């Protein structure tokens, strides 16, 4: 059981009511993309699921209510999280960053290093001195090291050079084949390639749930996401 159900989720930060009753469902073994313009509350939604900012409402993971649980317990249930700004530990080495993320008896280093062979050559380097793409690899690797039931990934290709976008996208596509995933992503080509469902948010609420075929429709994309062209 690894489906995720969010019902009437509200989040208030410093007096601003940022999520105003978010509802959606992430089915098992499928990739769901969470879309929307900048600042509509996608990252806040992911953080609320992870218990990183306190929300009210219902969040059921595999049937268990996780809304008031401490973050580490949520993670231990099998939720892997790749945050928006990577949030790797700059002063620790790559190896230490990965070691810190180990939860399983046998962390899957083969998978991580086969997806990102580059990291293997940099295990002793301080993560803060890595390039943006390499940092993103570390961030994703931390989530892939353990057998997670669901992955929450926030804008993994943000700010990456095109070549790295491809590399990260390939890695995600590989992982997407056999896992439950909720991904926030602006790159619609990537979304179309891996997602089976899409959810669109606007101003703290979900305004659309459906299939990725809608992204073929330019006017839909324009009105929902405020960007032109699903043809990248």
């Amino acid at each position, binding site marked *: 059981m690894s489906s995720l159900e969010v019902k009437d989720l509200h989040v208030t930060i410093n007096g601003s009511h940022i999520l105003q009753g978010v509802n959606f469902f992430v089915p098992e073994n499928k990739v769901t993309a969470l879309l929307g313009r900048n600042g509509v509350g996608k990252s806040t939604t992911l953080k609320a699921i992870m218990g*990183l900012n306190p929300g009210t409402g219902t969040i059921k993971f595999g049937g268990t209510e996780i809304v008031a649980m*401490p973050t580490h317990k949520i*993670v231990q249930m099998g939720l892997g*999280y790749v945050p928006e700004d990577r949030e790797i*530990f700059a*002063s*620790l080495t790559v190896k*230490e960053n990965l070691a810190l*993320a180990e*939860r399983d008896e046998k962390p899957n280093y083969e998978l991580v290093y086969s997806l990102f062979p580059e990291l293997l050559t940099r295990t002793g380097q301080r993560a803060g001195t890595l390039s943006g793409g390499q940092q993103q690899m570390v961030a994703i690797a931390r989530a892939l090291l353990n057998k997670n039931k669901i992955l929450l990934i926030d804008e993994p290709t943000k700010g990456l050079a095109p070549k790295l976008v491809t590399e990260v996208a390939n890695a995600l596509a590989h992982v997407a084949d056999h896992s439950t995933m909720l991904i926030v992503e602006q790159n619609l080509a990537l979304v179309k390639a891996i997602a089976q469902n899409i959810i669109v948010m606007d101003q703290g609420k979900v305004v659309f749930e459906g299939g990725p075929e809608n992204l073929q429709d330019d006017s839909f994309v324009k009105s929902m996401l405020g960007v032109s062209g699903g043809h990248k």
Partner: protein
Amino acid sequence: MSTFLLILITGLGLGALYFLVASGLSLIYGLMGVLNFAHGAFLTIGAFTGLWVSTKVFPNPTTWTFIAAMIAGGITAGLFALLMEQLVINRLYNRHIDQALVTVGVSLVATALLGGWFGFDARFLPTPLWFMKAVTIGDAIIPIDRFIYIGVSAILLIAMLSILKFTRIGLIIRAGVENRSMVTALGINVRMAFSTVFFIGGFAAGVGGVLISVFSYGVSPLMGGSWLIYGFIVVVVGGMGSVAGSAIAAMLIGVTNQFANYYVPGLGDFVVVIILAAVLLTKPSGLLGKVSH
């Protein structure tokens, strides 16, 4: 030249004592964002425990009994720190100002308790006789106690850095200083790390308390207060959350203090606070600062 060496080593000795107070403050603040005003009380509790060991448990001071006094002082202060963390700090989770305020209360209560039990007059902590000797380096005659402060601090510095570097809890602490919420987002319960830094910080302060009793010729409930302020200064100059930064800043401040005092008696303390203001105004994160709470 001999005067220079004497002042330098005296300054390093003073810096070593500052370091014992500051290292824990720095880790606690770095990891938890708690400005710990009870740290002076940890020091005092360590000193009183050391006094008890050196007078009641082993009335004839030897090198070994003094080591026992330091370890006992460290452990008692560490346990007190742990107790405070469990009983009050944890209940105010993430309310940083309230946490700082409650440590002010703990400090008052602990100081008053000790004052009520033992009075406020300074008591002499007996030491092995060789502590009073001096060594000659070139033509400089240097009291031996300086080297004890430096040696003990160096041992604790190495121990702390080793824990941080080579253990899993150390890894969690280092990561937590940088970004605590991301540590929890990797499925790690950071409370264990909180308890660890409080124990380590309390331990170092407790050992410091015993040594400071030797340095300032006495144990008194009020001794923690002024050392706490210099502890803060060292932490801020060195950078919150960095043990190595604390060590460097402690030495810098100890040596500067002694040299300034040599030229104008009393000027040392003044120069130190001016250094603090200058560092903060030019580099608010301190010399090796990692956190910006």
